[in-house]
């Protein structure tokens, strides 16, 4: 795994609060040196805030199953 791939993985995990403290430090160090990853990381963070802002809703699996059944009949 290249340093950039590793940074991308940590960055994705961080979007779901699943990156450890050490990982975050490693990420920050990499972003400081790699502008391309820094840009990607910033955009990734924005995607997270956009998703939160949109307050998306989804149908439950049960709802979908019952919809499919009604369509069959």
């Amino acid at each position, binding site marked *: 795994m290249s340093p950039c791939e590793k940074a991308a993985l940590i960055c994705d995990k961080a979007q779901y609060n699943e990156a450890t403290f050490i990982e975050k430090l490693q990420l920050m160090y990499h972003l400081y040196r790699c502008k391309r990853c820094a840009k990607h990381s910033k955009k*990734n963070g*924005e*995607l997270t805030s956009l998703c939160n802002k*949109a307050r998306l809703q989804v*149908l439950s699996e049960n709802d979908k199953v019952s*919809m499919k059944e009604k369509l069959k009949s």
Partner: protein
Amino acid sequence: MIPNTLNPETWVDQYADYLFNYAVSRVSDIEIAKDLVQDTFIAGLKSAKNFKGDASERTWLIAILKRKVIDYYRKINSNKGKAEVRMSYSSQTDAEGDWLEEKVADPNSVLENDSLENEELGEAIQECISKLPKKQALVFTMKTIQGVSTEEICNELNINPSNLWVMIHRSRTALMECLNQKWFNV
């Protein structure tokens, strides 16, 4: 150009969430929104023979849903008097000031614009999700929208965490591409 075709058996998986978000933002009631989505699918199935293939499946379904939303509002307003806007001022008898002035929308309020923009944003995101490969869309939705834990998703879909993160990465990158520049500041 190859004409678009309809695949009703994939409708629920591919478009139900997209249509549902559209409906919820317009009728503000989850149960009614569900019914409208269901009605849309049924109407789509019934009029499938009229589908010419000019538009994409999604565009065609959303057009049907739009009609369903309008019909819904017609129906609830059909009894005379129900369409009236009622406001009571007497509840605040000790209020001072001009009643009409107080009812006027606050020109400095940004709430209305915000909620409109969020609706649009929600639809844009949902549209982009529906363009993802099916499994990626599922993993992304479970993780990001439903907030299911990594472990649970892995168990349910029988994948390992590194598969999961690869799919999350691909879907996030695709979404960043797909979501028009206007949503991003960088």
